[in-house]
């Protein structure tokens, strides 16, 4: 057998899956994750993860959008080619507000989606877990916890035993 990527274990229902995740967290593992076809409420805390950092990307996008909107209108209508229209001012913070507003939202949205991809390290072409049929069944109703071999605490036998102890079934080693 080639080098191991990690061990996966399945859990019967959402509560046992959730509590198993808490036990993996408490056991001190770092390179592991839970896999379910739906978001489980409170799972980030059960996995010992903090708040997602996606909002930072949203904020950067929003600020960029607002600035671009303001500067663009000023540059185009007041600086580069001022035209008198209906006696209105060439620039004011009021009339371009819809432009600033829409661009803030537009770039926030791109920032959010981009941030989600960046934080999740997607797109990703390949992951060894996809080789396992049991892992693919996560898209149906299987609930899986995978502990990766690059974790400092990882031990092929002890980790397998640990997963059994916390209620894991269908335990399988996934090769890298």
């Amino acid at each position, binding site marked *: 057998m080639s080098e191991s990527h990690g061990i996966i274990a399945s859990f019967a229902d959402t509560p046992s899956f959730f509590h198993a995740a808490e036990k993996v967290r408490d056991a001190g593992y770092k390179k592991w994750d839970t896999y*379910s076809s739906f978001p489980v409420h409170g799972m980030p805390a059960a996995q010992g993860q903090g708040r997602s950092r996606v909002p930072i990307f949203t904020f950067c996008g929003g600020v960029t959008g607002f600035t671009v909107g303001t500067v663009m*209108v000023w540059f185009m209508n007041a600086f580069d080619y001022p035209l008198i229209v209906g006696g209105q001012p060439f620039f004011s913070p009021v009339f371009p507000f819809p432009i600033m507003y829409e661009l803030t939202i537009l770039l926030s949205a791109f920032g959010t989606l981009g941030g989600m991809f960046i934080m999740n390290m997607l797109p990703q072409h390949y992951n060894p877990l996809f080789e396992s049929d049991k892992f*693919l069944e996560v*898209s149906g109703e299987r609930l899986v916890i995978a502990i990766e071999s690059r974790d400092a605490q990882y031990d092929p036998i002890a980790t397998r035993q640990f997963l059994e102890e916390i209620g894991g079934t269908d335990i399988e080693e996934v090769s890298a």
Partner: protein
Amino acid sequence: MATTSQESSLDPAQAALLARVQPAELVEQPLVTNNRDFAWVTNKICRIVETPTPTWWWVCMAVALVTASFTGLGLLWLVSTGVGVWGLANPINWGWAIVNFVFWIGIGHAGTLISAVLCLLKQGWRTSINRAAEAMTIFAVVCAGIFPLFHVGRVWFAWWLFPIPNSNAIWPQFRSPLEWDVFAVSTYGTVSVLFWYMGMIPDLGVLRDRAVLRLKAGAYEGSSTLKKKLAEGMDIFRKYLYAIFAMGWRNAGNHWRNYEMAYLILAGISTPLVLSVHTIVSFDFALAVLPGWHTTIFPPYFVAGAIFSGFGMVLTLMLPLRALYGLHDLITQRHIDNMCKICLGTGSIVGYAYIMEFFIAWYGANPYESFAFINRAFGQYWWAYVMMFSCNVFTPQLFWFKKVRANAALVWVMSIFINVGMWFERFVITVTSLANDFLPSSWGYYSPTMVDILTFFGTFGLFSVLFLLFLRFLPLMPIAEVKFVMPAADPHGHDHGHGHGDVAQGGQGDHH
């Protein structure tokens, strides 16, 4: 569930009181009925795209394509001849094109309302209808965009609307609400696509994984070798197509953490967006100094009307789909009730706005304004006003009755009335105000030409083509979100009775 935990902490006197008054236990209807499990939900939704194309789909597609070709024909005619082929003439230079634009944009609003506003309000029932409603939004924006695009006259200069340097070195004029509209609608279209796509990533992953599993198992059933090969070929196609768009999504807890945050933020920014879009559309009218248009009530009135018409369209689409695909356990009577109630609420706001416009026209004591409104209801376009008023004000009032809401066929017919009524609303606003303006000597009467009619009816075909393609290739409902509101998704195992949605969506942090 909340009652039981309270009862245990009550002192005897309170408990006795509680026993005496016997508060009614409100049972929340489940969002997925018949105790379906995760596997059932996944199969139900995935099988829609995985099974061979049903015959009705081909029939609908053929009809839709023929209808859509009317739009192509109408536009070809317009571009090769000139905007004169539309029934526009002084003083009515905004005719069906603008009416149709506002109509379609309005329809889109319900999709965003369901996906964004109801998400922020933690309305679990949105889950089974939000994907289709978002698709409806995007396709409606596509249909809407056609009209102002070609209304500019020389469509090959339409890119001047965007802040792109051109050889005349003139920039767009940002003091015009029409230019704001360019930004509002294009932002709306783009953000709706991003939101729709992001919501779909996990489900695309599901379709991908299922195709891979079937390919690995290799057991294809079919009457002939050709059919087996075809089924296998389709799965190979699915494996690659969905894999590209799923971006390597693997359902990890870490993925979900960032995804949920991103989803919440997109919902948060789409809410002010959707309110701004129809507000800015209403500015196209409200900022003109024309009696009947120049009113401050327009932004809220347009937004309410948009949500009203959009929910009408959601009902028009979802009720047949529910029957065709047997989705009664996912789109339950509770969903239909809620949608009808939103129609009732927004329809009543619209009715209030109609009446308030009249009140203000009288109270404002502006003779031009009061003429515009009396002329609207009793002038040469009285029939349009009657259509608008009866469809939009009276129809939704029937939704007060439970019996009406429970009759799917009746609700469907009423949703068509709402669509028709809302089209007439835009017609009344746009045309009556222009036809009889300040100077009676310049008054006119607007009638659409065949080109107007073909172009408009064709957009229903275009919309249907896009929607049918969506049905065939993409998951109709967000599988992950439907599972999330099911009792089995609750990590605290309240696997009995009612109220699971509350727990699954309720406060975090009761487990440390």
